[in-house]
């Protein structure tokens, strides 16, 4: 049954009516109007949607909203502190990394996560980043990560605690209007399975990735 899910997005508490299996990516994009995380595959492979859940890297396209209860979601929009860029964002600007830009929100969120885990990543650590960049910005991505290596990684948005009661931020009125969602329009029912695209069966890598995420965030 559709139910209310309460969690925080970029420091603001939100409450969303949705089928518990609805991937966080579509909750963010279609219900909350948070369009920084991009769709690139829907099965956890391209990682262009990469965001953070309670400070850990996730791929929101394969994380059901039901698993976000009372957690803090950080998207690219929540990384800067107002006009002050996060050091990783600044490094990206300085190295002029982006081409089409589409993968870069995910690349940045993945790099922040890596740098939080390991302040000075090796080339092998950078090689292990799975985020796809179809424009081939890899040399500058690598350079930007090395440039910012060793710098203190402030929590996103300087770690402001979530603000505002849920009533202040009805999810359907937030953000940029999403897809013109009407408040209260979600009368979902449980979906059968978590596949939204039937792609997992055909995609060799996705099963494993999905399992990994499932176990990391399986609560």
């Amino acid at each position: 049954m559709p139910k209310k899910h309460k969690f925080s997005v970029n420091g603001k508490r939100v409450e969303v009516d949705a089928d518990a299996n609805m991937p966080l990516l579509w909750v963010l994009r279609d219900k909350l109007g948070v369009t920084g995380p991009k769709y690139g595959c829907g099965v956890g492979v391209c990682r262009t949607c990469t965001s953070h859940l309670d400070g850990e890297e996730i791929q929101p396209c394969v994380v059901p909203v039901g698993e976000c209860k009372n957690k803090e979601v950080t998207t690219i929009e929540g990384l800067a502190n107002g006009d002050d860029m996060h050091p990783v964002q600044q490094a990206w600007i300085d190295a002029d990394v982006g081409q089409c830009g589409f993968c870069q929100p995910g690349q940045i969120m993945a790099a922040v996560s890596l740098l939080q885990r390991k302040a000075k990543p090796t080339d092998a650590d950078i090689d292990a980043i799975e985020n796809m960049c179809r424009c081939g910005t890899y040399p500058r991505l690598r350079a930007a990560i090395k440039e910012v290596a060793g710098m203190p990684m402030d929590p996103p948005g300087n770690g402001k605690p979530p603000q505002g009661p849920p009533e202040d931020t009805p999810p359907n009125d937030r953000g940029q209007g999403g897809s013109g969602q009407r408040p209260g329009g979600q009368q979902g029912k449980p979906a059968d399975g978590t596949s939204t695209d039937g792609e997992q069966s055909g995609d060799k890598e996705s099963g494993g990735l999905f399992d990994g995420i499932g176990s990391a965030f399986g609560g």
Partner: protein
Amino acid sequence: MAEPEPTAQDKGRGLRRRKFLTFLVAAPTLTVAGRFGFDALTEASALPSPPALEDIADLGDAIRLASMPTTHLMVLEVTEDTTIRFELPRLEVGQGISTAIAMMVAEELDARIDDVNVELSDSRPELHFNQITAASTGVRILWDPVRRMAADARARLINAAANQWGLSAEELTTQDSTVRAPDGRTLSYGELAVAAREESSTGSKLKDAAEYTTIGTPVSRTDARDIVTGKALYAMDLPIEGALPTVVARPPTINGTVESVDDTKAKSMPGVVAVTTIPSGVAVSAETFYEALQARDALEITWGAGPIDGMSDADIRAKLKSTSQPLAAPKLRGSHLDATFDFAFVNHAPMEVESAAASVPGDGTAEVWMPSQTAIWAQGVIAGELGLNRDDVTVHVTRAGGSFGRRLFADVGIEAARVSQAIGRPVKLMRTRQDDMKHGRMRPAYHQKIRASYAAGEVLSFEHRVTGVTLDFDHGLGEALTSTLAQVAEGGAGQYYFTSSQSMPYHVGAVSQTLQEVQLGIPTSSFRSVYSGTVRAAEEVVMDELAEKMGKDPVEFRRKVVKTSSGKAVLTKAAEAAGWGKDMPAGHAQGVGYHAEYRSHAACVVDIDATDPANPRVTKAVLAVDVGRVVNPKGLEAQIMGSTMDGIATVLRAGIHIDNGAVRENSYGDYLWTKHADAPVTCEVHIIPATWNPGGAGELALPAAAGAVANAYARATGTRPRSFPINH
């Protein structure tokens, strides 16, 4: 229909009503191209090859001629708040054209680059062929007219200030978006915008290159901040009120048809608003993409066969092979080398899947939001599909999340418009990645034969027969080409494109390059480097093998026979910088490749680690390029790096399989494009300074890199690569 909200990248939009100064400059005179023909032939002792069509007037020249008559219709505005707005009739796909144009405007206007706001223009049919983004022509074509517009604007602002101050224009200078008097008084361009409307552009003059302060300096992308904060908006991010997320159930095989649909279950599912059958499949529109995807899975559809049902890779290869004309070159005195090559289909796989939003409210008008390389053509075909007048349809060009040639067509724009028309609601239609893989247009598969004959250390003839699945040119570029040089277009746009873009950059005796195409009904679209991506890669492999046969070093051999001094210079630079010939462990090797097109030159040397031949890695790539005058070295370097990654991907691992009429691949999990772990850890780009007008650079490095990677692999493993990708 509400316009999308202005964004940071788009700050001028909200000021549209406060136009004060709009410059419509006279059409620039048609200047003689600076680099027609051979630029300083090397004193090659090799057997000279006569010039090919590409040497004399290449594709870019033809597209420039086609776009010239309307360059005066482009719009540059200065507003009262010193925003300088240029409506760019091109698509930004990541190639950095917006930044390069902003630099040209800033340079000739003496404006701060932050004041220059380049917006992607809506479709404007009056521009005819001057709204096509293709063939690396953006900077090349706009170089002259944009600088002239900016110089005219500057002159009018100076004249306005001179009037206001009662001084002569010659006494005044410009800097940082202001006009300055000798006594230190200043007026900002915004303050002069109204008065300058009435001024003439007397005194307008382009700067000498020696005066440049912006052009030629490394400038970061003007949208860098939008990109890193998530504010850069793509088609599916636009807050178009009421636009329903829409996905399309597509047939199991390529271009299959819909025979019957049972949508009872799907329609009863939560959030579903409408189910619409369109020629390419069955569209589900819902409140969210999640619900649309769920309902799509619940549709029961009987599908009809597609044009290649039952055909697989081997059949397609056999078909190409049997169509391919025999090599005709007589086996001349001396020896000869024959080689045949096969190239798999390649999916463009741009990061942003093909997507479009549309609003067709039923009042005879339509609006479509999509990243389009051919906006005017898209406007026309969408109008045709909807039964509307072209002028009642607007295509809003949105920034693209990559293209690589995929956005030459309007397939999803047409789909979105049809669905919106049918249901009377705005929609945003997105392909899933799997849709994009299985039904997206592709670089055609090719079968290529080469015969080269040689004697006494010289190549006497070089014959190349290219046979491929038909490359679809029905997207407006073909019309632009045939409008300029119709007599060459007898064989259709493909033949013309081939002839006008292909030439052999070496003196290798009598050269013949021909193209034959086989129509199979498979959706295709030009891929970055178009024909050169395969044709020149194969030729570079043969060049290495010729060198080996004749006992010559691959770099020295190329340097000796390359036609131009620019070619020789880039080869020398790349080889030097890469330490060509250095000792390498077993299973490792270097490889070289060279390519010239669109008046530009690239040489590439890569180091490969192929100790595991099934999983080779390019560990280092060194490129040297000469692209004429460089507008933005940072942007150029990015393009060269990006196209190098494409060369690595297409040679080593990324290729599509066709099984019984369907694409096998689903996503990036099984379509193995270059990732961090495949990218060279070191990638150097050396730019040879040059002063002639800019050539094309967006596609340049792919063939050179592809050749270098294939040759490095051959040298490391001792095998001769003949089928690409090598690890398919």
